[in-house]
């Protein structure tokens, strides 16, 4: 209970009741071990630096004095480039004039969409394990979060059956993140068609966060927005962080029906105004000339994935092969430890950081997330250490 002198009395109730991110706890634990040769597989970003030509274009923009606001929707040249890119890679057409908005990362786009579409009490579904902010984002707009479980046996693909089982009357929005952070799970076209049919049947609005789509290793990525009858009920969310190694630039975008983008724009203009012009210039360069770098990075991730998945399975940590993203999500139940005990033990005894799966929701229990966006020699060494840790438990 807050007393009269406690500053906490000013914190809004729904914010005060938000749980602290499980990632945060672990971050602090790792931070305590600074200087101790820790290999971190706990990151959520590429180990590549943004390709030089992209950085150089931002420097050039500064030199030319590009330091002002842009249109609320973002620079029209960038929106045109986004329209072309999305049409080429995702087979959906959006008008640059009124169907695309440039945002401060996909995170802002997601927040805008929730604020624009979710009334207090509206029900928002998402598959889980999922990105750490999904459930809190719903809470922040006073929505009701409904987690739909995905399972290792399905390679963590979302199934229409699970969706139907979790559905409740009044559900309005479905959030998708395919390929998924933390599981790397994604859906093939047939699975997506079944999900799409369900969304049409229940009149759900889809918010599709496809930030890892370029990092799809087997088969091609299909966007749910490209399926018949879906573009008109889908907000397509994407950004530059993962594929172009641009996490720190904070630049993303949303595409969708004009009336919905307009609603998101209202929130955006009163809160963020516009994304940084420097980041927009860099993003434009990325779309114009960055594809070769994306392919090179994807090839690297692909081989690192094969390496880490093979090693985890050899060690006895059952690990499905993630079809996309740069995360492996092995099960640690064979060790008899919980995911938190495993992650803490691995960190303190062998100095390898992974993230306990429960940080991504209760369906992540029994798993850890290991990011393979790191150099080969680091992955090799981290897996050797994990092997020593697993063997030490058996003794």
């Amino acid at each position, binding site marked *: 209970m807050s007393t009269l002198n406690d500053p906490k009395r000013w914190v809004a109730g729904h914010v005060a009741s938000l749980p602290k991110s499980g990632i945060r706890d672990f*971050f602090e634990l*790792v931070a305590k071990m600074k200087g101790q040769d820790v290999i*971190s597989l706990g990151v959520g970003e590429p180990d590549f*630096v943004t390709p030089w030509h992209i950085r150089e274009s931002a420097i050039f923009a500064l030199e030319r004095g590009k330091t002002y606001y842009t249109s609320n929707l973002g620079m029209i040249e960038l929106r045109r480039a986004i329209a072309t890119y999305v049409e080429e890679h995702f087979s959906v057409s959006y008008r640059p004039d009124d169907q695309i908005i440039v945002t401060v990362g996909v995170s802002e786009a997601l927040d805008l969409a929730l604020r624009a579409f979710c009334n207090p009490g509206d029900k928002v579904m998402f598959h889980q394990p999922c990105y750490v902010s999904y459930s809190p984002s719903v809470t922040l707009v006073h929505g009701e979060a409904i987690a739909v479980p995905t399972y290792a046996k399905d390679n963590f693909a979302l199934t229409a059956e699970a969706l139907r089982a979790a559905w409740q009357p009044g559900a309005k929005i479905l959030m998708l993140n395919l390929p998924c*952070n933390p599981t790397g799970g994604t859906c093939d076209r047939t699975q997506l068609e079944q999900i799409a049919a369900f969304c049409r049947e229940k009149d759900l609005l889809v918010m599709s966060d496809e930030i890892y789509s370029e990092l799809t290793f087997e088969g091609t990525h299909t966007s749910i927005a490209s399926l018949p009858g879906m573009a008109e009920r889908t907000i397509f969310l994407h950004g530059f962080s993962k594929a172009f190694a641009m996490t720190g630039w904070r630049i993303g975008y949303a595409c969708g029906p004009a009336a919905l983008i307009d609603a998101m724009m209202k929130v955006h203009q009163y809160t963020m105004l516009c994304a940084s012009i420097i980041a927009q210039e860099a993003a434009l360069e990325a779309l114009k000339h960055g594809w070769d770098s994306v392919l090179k990075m994807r090839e690297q991730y692909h081989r690192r994935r094969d390496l880490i998945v093979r090693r985890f399975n050899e060690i006895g940590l059952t690990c499905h092969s993630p079809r996309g993203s740069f995360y492996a999500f092995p099960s640690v139940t064979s060790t008899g430890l919980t995911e938190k005990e495993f992650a803490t033990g691995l960190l303190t005894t062998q100095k390898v*950081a992974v993230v306990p799966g429960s940080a991504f929701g209760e369906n992540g229990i029994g798993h850890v997330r290991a990011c393979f966006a790191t*150099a080969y*020699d680091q992955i090799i060494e981290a897996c050797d250490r994990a092997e020593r840790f697993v063997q030490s438990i058996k003794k």
Partner: protein
Amino acid sequence: MNPVLKLLIEGASLTTSQMAKVAGLSEAEVNQHLEQLKKDKIFLGWRPVLDLSHEAAAASAVRAVIEVKVTPERGGGFNRFAERIARFDEVESCYLMSGGYDLLVFVKGQSLQKVASFVSEKLSTIEGVQATSTHFMLRCYKEQGFLLDGGEAQSSRLNVAP
């Protein structure tokens, strides 16, 4: 593509045992691939990449690029010249070029005098060599893909992030 060749092209500095783990092969298999690539004259050998501006690494630190104009021979073209020049120990690399000269020769030596005498006594006296133009390298900024100032500041990346 040969998985070992792929790793070599990528330029990752891996030991053969690390290559084996990355490619999912045994170390013996990696060595077999390397032997085969050597037999096929695709893989010519290993060389370290050194920052020669460091005094410790400064042996043979004088380096020059020489443009060579030659009169091509009937029958032999430029090849005989190029092969002859390339055999000198001082020559690190030798290319046939398009444009204002014919051969571009990368030379290294222990001192300016040694490189100069190589050019004046050996290179320019070869019959058919019309002219040479020697450029001494003053400072290196990037060596075979490695930035000499250490490249990117990487250390501040978060260890754990969502």
